């Protein structure tokens, strides 16, 4: 029987090509018209530590969440088997390297001691020694699934002979064994994978062919009874063209489309890839006709990153930077200068595990309050958070418009999950968001009052426009010169703060919070960012079990849509409103309380660094609805 949705996990040491396999598989299956998303989990290490990619593939929709168990665990090494064998679904498959069959857990030295203890406990339950062979046995006998040991060495040896390459070179194609295994278990034509390889390797036929040889040999080695075990339904998505990219890439694309022509950054995970993407496209030309040029400036630190972007913005250029927690901490002072001087600036803030360097390669949503309050003094800002990559694309365009229209810094909150998710996305339509440059003046002359008080949002002559203007971090008068006059202080302060009201009036409420559900829902999940997909999918599944819920997706936290949110909350029994977030404090709930007075008392939180999975969220919702708990802390996932 073909499936509507399939889940896979491909694991191996960091640097061994698991990530490449993920992007090839995404391009391949998207090419067939399937929806696909994958989350990459990895240590803060370049080569050697355990990493894996976890997929959801759908025949009917663009997947938005991940779940366990999975129909296929494909393992490149012993550690991947030992770490993930218990996640194989009944009727699913574990594919691994027969060469590590005898490996004991004690020989896997890269495994963290805490993981080792958990794995050993799992084996103890079954009364077996923790070895790869025994893991396969458990999969077969206890999980009612299949285990397929493949002779990786033999496959690569045959490939080496066929290709006439050295034994060192053939190792480069080792990760394609996982691709071959996935193709076999999914029952797809290997030619489909060739398409994905061509996309990934930009048509380099030598690499494509070499990988295809490994894939072919692998598929032949996979026993008949597991081939096509996780076969997907015919794709039903109505699309002719998709973009297959990571969240970093998609936001980079949006910045280019949205007119960002200056991006500064200091390398930090998981933000840097965005800047690298933009740099690769800095000469924007089509058919040899130049369309624009972008400066991507790698600075000496984040202080320079934000302040140079501010400098660029003063010349009338759409300027942006991207960072994550530690970098944003350094940017706080510059943010205040931008707020005080009414500079349009976009900061894309990729949240990751904190505090301090925390969990640099893992996800979290613990910087909401920091984004709202960072920097000293009071000034208006926009804080917008995206729930998925498609939203992130359009939000970037909107953020750029709002920055210029209201002349304020905008913080765009995304996170590591979104950054590293590789998804196939519908081709976005940039004409949906018109460019709004606000009161920017590109031609002027002579000294001008940059902070003209006749309107809270003054005309903004660019430096270089012919006007002469002044800016200062001290309180200024209309000319931008220092003033400590108390009356001027009040006028300028009010002018700036007045924008909070203007933004609240002018930014449509439906762009700030979205209610998913109907009028007679009897419980409400409230969340933001990457929680969206898991929440919506969990609600669908819960509905089939008779639980009727809705989701309130918060997007803009400043200016907060207070009345709209308060109205929705008031319709629910307070005991049936559940805040769902990737942090400890329930930060969005605090923002809600601050803005509406509504106190949320039920929480589902996760701060392991791993994403929230559909099945664990669903179970936690049930426990809360049944009154068994008021605070659920989720921990699933290695």
């Amino acid at each position: 029987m073909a499936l509507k949705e399939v889940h896979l996990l491909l694991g191996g040491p960091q640097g061994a090509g698991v990530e490449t396999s993920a992007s090839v598989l995404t391009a391949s299956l998207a090419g067939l018209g399937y929806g696909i998303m994958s989350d990459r989990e990895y240590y803060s290490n370049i080569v050697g530590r355990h990493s894996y990619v976890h997929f959801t593939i759908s025949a009917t929709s663009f997947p938005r969440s991940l779940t366990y168990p999975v129909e296929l665990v494909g393992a490149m090494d012993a550690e991947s088997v030992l770490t993930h064998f218990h996640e194989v679904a009944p009727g699913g498959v574990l594919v691994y390297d027969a060469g590590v069959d005898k490996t004991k857990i004690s020989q896997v030295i890269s495994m963290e001691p805490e993981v080792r203890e958990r794995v050993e406990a799992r084996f103890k339950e079954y009364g077996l020694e923790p070895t790869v062979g025994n893991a396969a046995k458990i999969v077969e006998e206890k999980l009612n699934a299949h285990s397929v040991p493949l002779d990786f060495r033999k496959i690569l040896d045959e490939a080496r002979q066929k290709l006439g390459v050295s034994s060192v070179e053939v190792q480069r194609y080792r990760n394609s064994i996982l691709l071959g295994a996935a193709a076999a278990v999914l029952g797809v034509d290997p030619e489909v994978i060739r398409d994905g390889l061509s996309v990934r390797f930009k048509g380099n036929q030598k690499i494509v062919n070499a990988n295809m040889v490994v894939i072919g040999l692998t598929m032949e080695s996979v026993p008949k009874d597991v081939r096509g075990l996780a076969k997907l339904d015919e794709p039903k998505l109505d699309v002719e063209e998709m973009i297959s990219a990571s969240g970093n890439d998609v936001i980079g694309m949006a910045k280019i489309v949205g007119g960002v022509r200056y991006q500064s950054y200091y390398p930090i995970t998981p933000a840097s890839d965005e800047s690298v993407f933009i740099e690769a496209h800095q000469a924007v030309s089509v058919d040899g006709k130049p369309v624009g040029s972008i400066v991507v400036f790698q600075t000496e630190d984040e202080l320079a990153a934000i302040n140079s972007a501010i400098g660029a913005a003063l010349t009338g250029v759409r300027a942006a930077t991207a960072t994550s927690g530690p970098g944003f901490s350094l940017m706080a002072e510059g943010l205040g200068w931008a707020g005080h001087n009414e500079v349009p600036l976009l900061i894309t803030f990729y949240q990751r595990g904190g505090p301090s360097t925390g969990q640099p390669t893992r996800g979290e949503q613990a910087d909401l309050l920091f984004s709202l309050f960072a920097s000293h003094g009071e000034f208006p800002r926009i804080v917008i958070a995206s729930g998925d990559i498609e939203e992130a694309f359009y939000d970037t365009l909107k953020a750029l418009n709002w920055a210029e229209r209201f002349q304020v810094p905008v913080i765009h909150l995304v996170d590591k999950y979104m950054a590293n998710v590789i998804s196939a996305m519908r081709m976005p339509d940039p004409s949906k968001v018109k460019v709004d440059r606000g009161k920017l003046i590109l031609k002027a002359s002579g000294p001008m009052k940059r902070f003209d008080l006749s309107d809270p949002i003054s005309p903004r002559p660019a430096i270089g426009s012919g006007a002469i203007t002044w800016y200062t971090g001290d309180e200024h008068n209309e000319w931008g010169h220092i003033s400590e006059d108390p009356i001027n202080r009040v006028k300028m302060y009010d002018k700036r703060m007045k924008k909070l009201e203007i933004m609240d009036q002018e930014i449509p409420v439906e762009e700030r919070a979205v209610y998913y559900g109907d009028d007679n829902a009897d419980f409400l999940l409230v969340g933001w960012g990457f929680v969206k997909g898991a929440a919506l999918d969990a609600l669908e599944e819960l509905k089939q079990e008779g639980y009727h819920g809705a989701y309130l997706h918060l997007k803009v936290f400043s200016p907060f849509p207070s009345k709209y949110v308060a109205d929705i909350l008031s319709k629910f029994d307070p005991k049936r409103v559940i805040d769902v977030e990737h942090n400890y404090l329930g930060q969005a709930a605090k923002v809600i309380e601050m803005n509406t007075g509504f106190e949320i008392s039920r929480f589902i939180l996760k701060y392991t660094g791993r994403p929230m999975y559909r099945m664990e969220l669903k179970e936690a919702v049930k426990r809360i609805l049944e009154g068994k708990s008021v605070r659920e802390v989720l921990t699933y996932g290695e």
Partner: protein
Amino acid sequence: MASEAAYRTNVWVDWCPACGNFGILTAMQRALAELNIPPDKVVDVSGIGCSGKTSHFLNVNGVHNLHGRSIPYAEGIKLANPELTVLVNGGDGDLLGIGMAHFVALGRRNLDIKVIIHDNQVYGLTKGQASPTLRAGQRVKSMPLPNMQDWVNPISVALASGYTFVARAYALWIDDLKEILKAAIKHRGAAVIDVLQPCPTWNNIYTPDFYKQRLYKLDSEKDWDPYVKGPDPKEVAEKLSRAFAKAQEWGDRIPVGIFYANPYVESFVDNVSKVNPMYMQMSPAKNVIAKDDGTPIVDVPTMRAIFKDYIINVRKKHN
């Protein structure tokens, strides 16, 4: 030639009487007037401190920003619009203390920005603490104890960081300073002028008297020629080591003038142009980002072309 007055605002200059900053300000106004650069094409970027206020007194675009961060602001402005003349005015604390990383980074980039250090050996505006250019053991008026930290030599640091125009001037020798400023502005690349600036309010060591007895002009030495004449590594090495040697002189005799000037190093703007040939004609500030109807200039067909490596065409039929 434009008039010097055209570069003056009517903002009251609130420095202490006899402050060396007055000399720097006057020299700047004269240099800009003599070079005849339209005020709207000049940006003065300044930091925090007494010196930081310079921006408000100059009738050119002024960006008076955070303590230590002038150089990044200036870099963003210059890279976004390479046609602007970008100057940085900062204190020795601002540029060589809190802002030192940026100071070094600008040198290695050789971006066309002119850095003017108001070197008064103290933190003026915070009331006379030791700045990074005060020597160990010295104790100026407001310090309770002698300085425990030794100095950084701005000239040595600038030379070591890759600045391609390095000079020292004295704030009260306005005409000399003006000439050096003009040379720096004409120079294509990153320039530093370390301006010895008396601070009569806090600095009772480095007084006009002190300087009068010790300063001498590099020009007055026979054979002194700081200009590199061609892209010859041997000549560069020679000129640099002579400049380094001169930078060590600080005692009975203190040199002022141009220490080193090398117009043959590619500037950052040149480097950007190399990787992105359309940069100069289409610098970020000149980009048009929307069509007449307001939609982004990068539309779907353009996206397809630019992001072709990420676009998947879905197979109509498959088995």
